């Protein structure tokens, strides 16, 4: 398939995010809490993204691993998939739909404005640990997005109650969902670090080299560990502080995924 078809599929997916977001807002206004029309819209978007990723994969004869465009496109697919599955299984996560759709839409617009460059994957980079490293990374980012989206919603609802910061009605379930998804994200992040170290040892001879991406990924892991420990240490810590920290950690993860690899000169750098 040609790059034009791939671009058209991406435009359709971004338009799909916009349409699903609009549907969500209209349903909200009418007090309709139903999830399945939104799930249907997201499934169509997912199909467009799957076709776009497949088209690129077939044309370049390699997975979307290296350039900023590759990373954006593949993460649009994986983040949508993670959200669709998780929100279908855990109703408390559906409350974050508006925030998640807005984020994915922005990511889609960004990807439309990035040159669809391709860089050959070096022979030493292509091993099964790369796959496990990338898959666990995408799962981490997806779960972190869910935690942050739900936390952000809790924050906006809590601040609306003017004086006292109070957890909203469905807040207990949502608060649980934030911490469970963040804990799962921590597991995935840990696996991503281990798989990445094994891959790096094979690909460029060292399991850890303190390049910018490795360092910032480690900082993200430490930040999650710090938050989980702080939550146990300071039992009376206001819930809003914890939620804010979850949002900050997601911001850090986004910066690490989409920023650091493309401004450093290390082996991890997007363009090699």
């Amino acid at each position, binding site marked *: 398939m040609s790059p034009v078809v791939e671009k058209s599929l991406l435009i359709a997916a971004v338009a799909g995010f916009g349409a699903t977001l609009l549907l969500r807002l209209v349903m909200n206004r009418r007090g309709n809490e139903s999830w399945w029309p939104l799930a249907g819209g997201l499934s169509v978007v997912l199909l467009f993204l799957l076709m776009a990723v497949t088209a690129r994969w077939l044309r370049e004869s390699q997975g979307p691993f290296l350039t900023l465009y590759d990373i954006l496109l593949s993460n649009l697919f994986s983040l949508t998939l993670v959200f669709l599955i998780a929100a279908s299984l855990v109703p408390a996560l559906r409350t974050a739909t508006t925030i998640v759709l807005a984020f994915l839409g922005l990511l889609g617009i960004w990807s439309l404005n990035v040159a669809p460059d391709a860089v050959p994957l070096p022979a030493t980079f292509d091993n099964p640990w790369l796959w496990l490293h990338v898959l666990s990374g995408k799962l981490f980012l997806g779960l972190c997005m869910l935690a942050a989206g739900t936390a952000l919603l809790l924050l906006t609802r809590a601040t609306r109650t003017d004086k006292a910061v109070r957890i909203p009605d469905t807040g207990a379930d949502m608060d649980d969902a934030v911490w469970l998804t963040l804990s799962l994200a921590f597991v995935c992040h840990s696996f991503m670090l281990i798989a990445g170290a094994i891959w790096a040892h094979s690909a460029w001879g060292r399991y850890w080299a303190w390049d910018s991406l490795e360092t910032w990924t480690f900082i993200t892991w430490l930040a999650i560990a710090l938050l989980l420990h*702080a939550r146990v*240490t300071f039992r009376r810590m206001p819930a809003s502080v914890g939620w804010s920290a979850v949002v900050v950690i997601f911001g850090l993860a986004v910066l690490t995924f989409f920023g650091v690899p493309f401004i450093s000169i290390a082996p991890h750098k997007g363009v090699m």
Partner: protein
Amino acid sequence: MRSLLKTLASLRLTLVGLVWLILNAIAVSQWPDGAIPWLVLPLALLALNLLAAILVNRTFRLQSALLVFHVGLLGVLILVAAGVLVRFDGQIELVEGEHFDPAAVRPMSRGWLHPRRMQNVEFSQGPIEVRYVSGLRRDTTHSTLNMSDEGSSYTFGDRQGFSSHGYRFMTTPNKGFSVLLLWEDVDGNEGLGAVNFPSYPEFEWKQQNEWTTPSGEQLTLELDLGTGVPEDSAWTLNSDVEFELLVRNEEGETLALAPGDSLSIAGGRMTVADLRLWMGYRIDYDPFLSWLLAAAFLSLGALTVHVQQKFRAPRGATVNALGRQQEA
């Protein structure tokens, strides 16, 4: 003693250690060359804190998965530290037919307690072959090493390394041509040496190098391979190619030499003996890697079980992020 342990096991100390480590890791992101000194103190504090917590923190006795996770994490810290103390990283370029000489290895980093066993490593470089697919994309690398003692050979490349006495040799993208020159001085003494040209095909456009003869004459050598790199078809890089060696002296006079040709220079005679390939290797040594991997996976497995238990806990007695049971 116990009160000291309790102080050391404090969760507040954990937070201090983590914040300290995060700040120092941010510093490392700016100055990565000095990473280890920045990180030693906060990591040592966290290791001590973790050890004390494992010994006295009752939560760990109630949560076995959480305990195993933290024991594994402590194991990772200890094994990383041990690896840093004994590790070795280096580079070497070997020409086809050349014997491995540990003295020629360029060290990149060496731990204080590195056991220096490299002199036990013995082999010579056999044939090198690198395959490319259309579009000048490197496909597979095959490097053959001839074992000195066993008379056997070992072919490897790319993701597969060669290990001897704990040292792992990995091929790199850095490889190229090397011309073998025979030097005969005025007394009839002969010596054979190699001049490596820049990495090929990356620097196909400047296959040049300087060589100073044993008599002190400065020469510029340029490799002329006749044809360029085929970009639209598959090809194999090996030393079986036709070539000419362009030799330029300090006066700017240039002479083209074919294989077997000789050139008389002040103080001796240079003969073009052969064209070979050289391969750049990365060498690393860390005997604790397997144990480190085992500790990391043990820790990860325990963390997964712990989080799963948290999922399965009834709402009335949910387990928080670090495993403490709390009332709803």
